[in-house]
């Protein structure tokens, strides 16, 4: 009996000791990993600085490529794109000839939580080498010294000139105004989807000017069955998160700009936005309509026009066939459309930056660029790929390429993420519901963005 009791006691002690040891081991391993990562980051930050200095002297040194594994994190919007990325990775691994093995790790976009999760992973010492990217995240990662400076790699790259200089400039603006931390990959230029049959019924042509566009919104708002209620709304307004992109076209259409949202021109653009809502030219749900809603409304025939990019063009064609087309956002006193962006980055902690650059440059101007853009319908950044028949003969792609010249982005500041996700939708909905004036709305947005 006594022996059995002793046995039980010993067992319990052993288990407790094991648990405690396990916990301690976990802690100590984590600590070690963190320390090591911190050390690596520190060393590589210094390395990056040296490389940059070298690049500034005109002697880009990108190092030799040795066989290695590159961990690449990406998101895909659907299972087809997921398979496509895996195919690109497989092709690159088979054909790069330098012993580089890319391991793709897919995580969901999750309404932007992708970037937050990536930030948490890197701050916690995660071993991701490179990843797909949105420019809005750049200041946060740059401020925390997480991104590698790509300037020397791009300077030494033989396909550098295949990408428009303007795109590099946007990448520089999103960083510290000196270095390129972000590698261009593909862009999505927003354009206006419209239904030719509704335009015909309304007796209008494709608008050429901003004023004609506002008129088209009004004329396309119709009561088709004579019951006194609107059945087709002229425009599918996006009032929820993400709506700042089409809204920016209204502001710029009146001659305003993001530099100062309080100018009379910018306020007039806001007034137009409020007017189309108050006059009933957009669905009454517009205030809370996000991406899913504006697309569903357009696809159901509830709206005659809406603003999005080529990412939804296949779906639109599937639903309407030839009865859907696109035009670039028309010009007024000013002209602007939002350039959605997807890029790639290499992290400071990556031990084989030259190998990682081989991979991201393959996506930017190589076979990876062609495969991805043809498969997803995104606009390529590579000029040679843009010129191919595939992109020139597609009406949605053409509207994108036509709008590329005046496409831009919301200023990338450290306030931008909060501005987009919380301040913009709530402040604009206050203006739409009349609880604040367009002037007050624009003042709040200006202060929030440039605080």
């Amino acid at each position, binding site marked *: 009996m006594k022996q059995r009791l002793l046995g039980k*006691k010993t067992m*319990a*002690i052993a288990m*407790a000791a094991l*648990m*405690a040891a396990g*916990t301690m081991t976990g802690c100590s391993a984590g600590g070690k990993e963190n320390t090591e990562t911190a050390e690596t980051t520190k060393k590589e930050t210094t390395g990056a600085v040296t490389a940059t200095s070298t690049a500034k002297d005109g002697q880009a040194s990108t190092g030799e490529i040795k066989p290695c594994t590159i961990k690449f994190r990406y998101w895909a919007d659907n299972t087809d794109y997921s398979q496509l990325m895996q195919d690109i990775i497989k092709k690159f691994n088979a054909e790069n000839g330098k012993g580089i093995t890319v391991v793709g790790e897919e995580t969901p976009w999750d309404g932007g939580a992708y970037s*937050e999760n990536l930030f948490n992973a890197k701050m916690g010492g995660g071993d991701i080498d490179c990843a797909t990217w949105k420019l809005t995240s750049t*200041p*946060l990662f740059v*401020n*925390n010294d997480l991104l590698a400076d790509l300037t020397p790699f791009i300077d030494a790259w033989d396909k550098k000139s295949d990408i428009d200089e303007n795109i590099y400039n946007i990448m520089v603006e999103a960083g510290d105004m000196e270095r390129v931390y972000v590698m261009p990959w593909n862009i999505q230029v927003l354009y206006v989807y419209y239904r030719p049959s509704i335009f015909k019924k309304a007796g209008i042509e494709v608008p050429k000017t901003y004023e004609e566009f506002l008129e088209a919104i009004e004329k396309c708002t119709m009561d088709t069955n004579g019951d006194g*209620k609107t059945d087709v709304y002229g425009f599918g307004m996006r*009032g*929820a*998160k993400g709506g700042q992109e089409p809204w920016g076209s209204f502001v710029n259409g009146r001659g305003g700009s993001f530099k100062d949202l309080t100018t009379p021109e910018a306020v007039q653009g806001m007034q137009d936005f409020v007017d189309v809502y108050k006059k009933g030219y957009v*669905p*009454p*749900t*517009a*205030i*809370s*309509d996000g991406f899913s*809603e504006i697309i*569903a*409304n357009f696809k*159901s025939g*509830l709206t005659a026009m809406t603003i999005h990019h080529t990412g939804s063009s296949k779906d639109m064609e599937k639903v309407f066939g030839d009865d859907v087309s696109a035009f670039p956002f028309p010009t007024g006193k000013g002209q602007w459309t939002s350039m959605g962006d997807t890029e790639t980055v290499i992290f400071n902690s990556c031990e084989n930056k030259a190998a990682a650059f081989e991979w991201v440059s393959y996506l930017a101007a190589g076979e990876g660029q062609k495969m991805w853009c043809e498969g997803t319908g995104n606009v390529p950044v590579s000029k040679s790929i843009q010129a191919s028949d595939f992109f020139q003969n597609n009406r949605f792609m053409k509207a994108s390429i036509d709008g590329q010249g005046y496409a831009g982005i919301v200023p990338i500041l*450290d*306030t931008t*993420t*909060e501005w987009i*996700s*919380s301040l913009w*939708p*709530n402040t604009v*909905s*206050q203006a739409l*519901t009349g*609880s604040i004036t367009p002037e007050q709305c624009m003042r709040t947005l200006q202060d929030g963005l440039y605080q």
Partner: protein
Amino acid sequence: MVKKRTIWPYVLVAPAVFIILCVVFIPVINAIIMSFQNYDLRRPKEIAFNGFSNYAAACRDPLFWGSLTRTIIWVVCGVGFQFLFGFILALLLNKEFKGRGVVRAVSMIPWVTPGVLIGLMWRWIYDGNFGVLNDLLLKVHFITDKIPFLSQVTTAFPSVIVTIIWQGIPFFALMLLAALQGVSTDIYEASDIDGASAWQKLILITIPSIKNTIFVTALLRIIWVANSVDVIFNMTEGGPAYSTQTLSVYIFNKGNALNLGYASAMALLMAVLLLFVAVPYLKMNFKEEV
């Protein structure tokens, strides 16, 4: 008999205590420290102690006070109606009837459904263009035009409150049903002999007999509902025009924006307010253990 003092119980619970310290106490202490700092990860080089600045900023912030007011309405209406309907459901389920087991199981569905799913589901139910609720109301001629429930400042908050009520009814029903089944039938039989009405039995027997359960479940639910983010966030993200932004959603939004110092300060203010609810609960638990 003298109890033998031994160290072994302490050794055996030590790993669990250690883990709790790591996952609960350290983050709490960290949050307290951050609340006194200008801890904004968007500007990591500016992180420094700033005293009570975050608390002062919260006191000056109209969005904080608006969110706090909405939190009170959210909790009072949400928990109040959850209790009312949960109690009615529990009384019904306490009666013998055919298929009671099935009804009991089905009535638990809202409680076992994840909050994120509930948010998304109700968002489409309320949809102003294609939502089933508008369709039903139009069919019964209750309305003549579709109502954009989540797009109007006047209807968005009541709509999310209805959703949280729907979600929480089963919890009250389950807890109160368990308590009701513990009430002796002898008391009801005696009251029948005395000629008590159904109302008198409810007020004088049922409620006093289960008052402890009512108290504990209501307190727990107040804390949970006050802290809940998932339903509101997935339905409206706090909009339109901040009309559904409760304090927990505001804290969540600020935390997401990486302004962790300000978010921590507001979280601590909220924790202090919730202590008024938590302390009676803890006292009661402590009394029961003693």
